[in-house]
């Protein structure tokens, strides 16, 4: 019990440090990188949904992008049709994603491995296509316009003028911190241990009294809530539509999770920063070689795919695992 409590305190301290660090960055960075960092934080929440699902409980989902879309569309409809504030809409979006996750989880609890991967892949393709199908509601290919709005007056009076990108980052930050705190606490709890037991040995954990399908559904629901939260923040940058949540978004989350370390919260952070900033870094390096347009367009994707394969073959624990090992050797 006291062990759990000391973990809790440690998690709280880490979360506060994380918040302070991002806050400092929010003052230092230029608008472009502020926007990129905001995206990285949004994806961080999405990647955490994979750390919970795949890393902790061993289920795979290629459809997290679709759950992000559920969150985004739910919020957009609430804002545009009911005139709710973005904060209420965010809560509704998370609830909608939790419900979608419940439905999905009930189906997914009976599946594993490649079956689950294939089914969630189909879902990732099918859900955004609903937007085109019911164009009058979801705005078709164009999508629906929502945004973070203007920074509140008290913030501007506190910090001087707050740019839109800065406001995006600052509005995302509390959610990222909450997600971080929630994830680290649940992974260190009894619940988190029962998930890992499930991942490592289904039969043994069912003998130990863990209800397998109930646990799987529960993980799916929690993970979907995270994805929904990431999705609404991602959509609040301007547009909610099928092109905002393509299949490649789901794959990007998975790539981030694997590169950083699929079982690690630190890994999730490293991974999301990597997938967002790596293309920029590659771009800035390539400028010196003046590559053709097609190379410039596709090289980042090729490099991240290559890193993905190298990671699973050579170091399945990802960067976080590597860091951990290095620390032990030192």
């Amino acid at each position, binding site marked *: 019990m006291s062990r759990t409590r000391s973990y809790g305190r440690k998690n709280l301290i880490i979360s506060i440090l994380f918040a302070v660090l991002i806050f400092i960055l929010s003052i230092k960075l230029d608008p472009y990188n502020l926007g990129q960092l905001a995206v990285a934080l949004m994806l961080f929440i999405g990647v955490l949904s994979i750390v919970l699902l795949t890393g902790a409980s061993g289920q795979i989902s290629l459809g997290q992008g679709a759950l992000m879309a559920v969150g985004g569309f739910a919020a957009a409809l609430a804002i545009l049709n009911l005139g709710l504030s973005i904060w209420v809409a965010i809560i509704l979006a998370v609830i909608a994603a939790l419900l979608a996750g419940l439905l999905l989880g009930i189906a997914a609890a009976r599946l594993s*491995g490649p079956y689950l991967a294939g089914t969630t892949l189909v879902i990732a393709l099918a859900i955004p296509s609903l937007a085109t199908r019911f164009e009058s509601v979801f705005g078709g290919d164009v999508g629906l316009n929502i945004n973070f709005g203007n920074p509140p007056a008290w913030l501007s009076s506190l910090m001087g003028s707050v740019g839109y990108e800065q406001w995006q980052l600052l509005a995302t930050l509390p959610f990222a911190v909450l997600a971080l705190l929630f994830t680290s606490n649940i992974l260190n709890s009894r619940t988190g241990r029962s998930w890992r037991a499930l991942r490592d040995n289904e039969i043994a954990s069912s003998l130990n009294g863990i209800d397998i399908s109930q646990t799987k559904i529960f993980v799916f629901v929690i993970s979907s809530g995270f994805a929904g939260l990431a999705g609404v923040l991602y959509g609040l940058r301007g547009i909610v539509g099928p092109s905002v949540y393509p299949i490649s978004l789901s794959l990007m989350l998975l790539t981030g999770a694997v590169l950083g370390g699929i079982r690690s919260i630190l890994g999730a952070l490293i991974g999301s920063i990597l997938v967002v900033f790596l293309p920029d870094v590659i771009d800035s390096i390539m400028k010196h070689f003046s590559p053709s347009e097609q190379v410039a367009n596709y090289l980042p994707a090729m490099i991240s795919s290559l890193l993905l394969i190298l990671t699973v073959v050579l170091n399945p624990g990802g960067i976080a695992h590597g860091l951990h090992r290095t620390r032990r050797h030192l």
Partner: protein
Amino acid sequence: MEIFLSAIFSGTSRGAIYALAALGLVLVWRGAGVVNFAQMGQAMFTTYIASTLIGHHYSYWLAFIVALISGGILGAFVDLSVMRPLSRKRSSNFLDSPAMRSTIPVIASLGILGILQSGAGIFWAAEERGFPTPVNSLGLVIGGKTMPFTAFDLFVIGTVFITLVITTYFFKGTGMGLAMRASALNPEVARLSGIKIGSMRTLSWTISGVASSLAGLLVTPSANLSPSTLDLILIIGFTAAVVGGLDSLLGSVIGGFALGLLISFVNVYDTPEDIFLAILVVLLAVLLIRPQGLLGSKEVRRV
């Protein structure tokens, strides 16, 4: 009636292609325990190779053969460079639970898909291209009447039929085919019988590569060629394979034709926008109601 017949014919010819895609998936699943999400990426890549050859004024048939051969080579390469090292990495604690052992290769195959798609983007600038047919693809005219099918439909169905006959003979009538079935069904007994199961795995990947490449060549004329055009075929092929039972070659072929007809009817009587939903409904229905599929065996299913 006219419309109904034409839906049947185009569904059959589409279904033949889906059957090939599903067959390719099942071959690798049975032979190597991996669902290869890169499969249609491989097919896309080899179709680009064919398209480039045709663009340089080589004959369709030469391009066709070269694409099939490169499909086989690509399949073998994927196995030797990624999947085999992965399957040998038993010591890692990330691979010690069954859940992760089946998940990690899926992630690897997505990485391969990413490389193939971005590679196609770099080599071929991701330009959308048409792709020719070897025979006419307008409604066939027999005795002055336009038939509800085209010469290309017949070509597709014929090619797939021949492929299925050859595949069946290979598996049922040759020692190599027996060795492949044995290693897929029971690797331990196969090894004790002196069968080199590693080579059999690579062979599964090779044959699957050829089959997928063929599916790509046959399906591309009706879509356009771009790095991601064949993603749809992957999920249709996957669904067809699950409908058939994922470990049954015959089941996957039946599943392919069933999906072909279904999609054709959705196309004609409903709207093409509903295709994804229809696929999702079929997939979920099969997985929830009859998870072993039409012909899959319960004991082998590793859900």
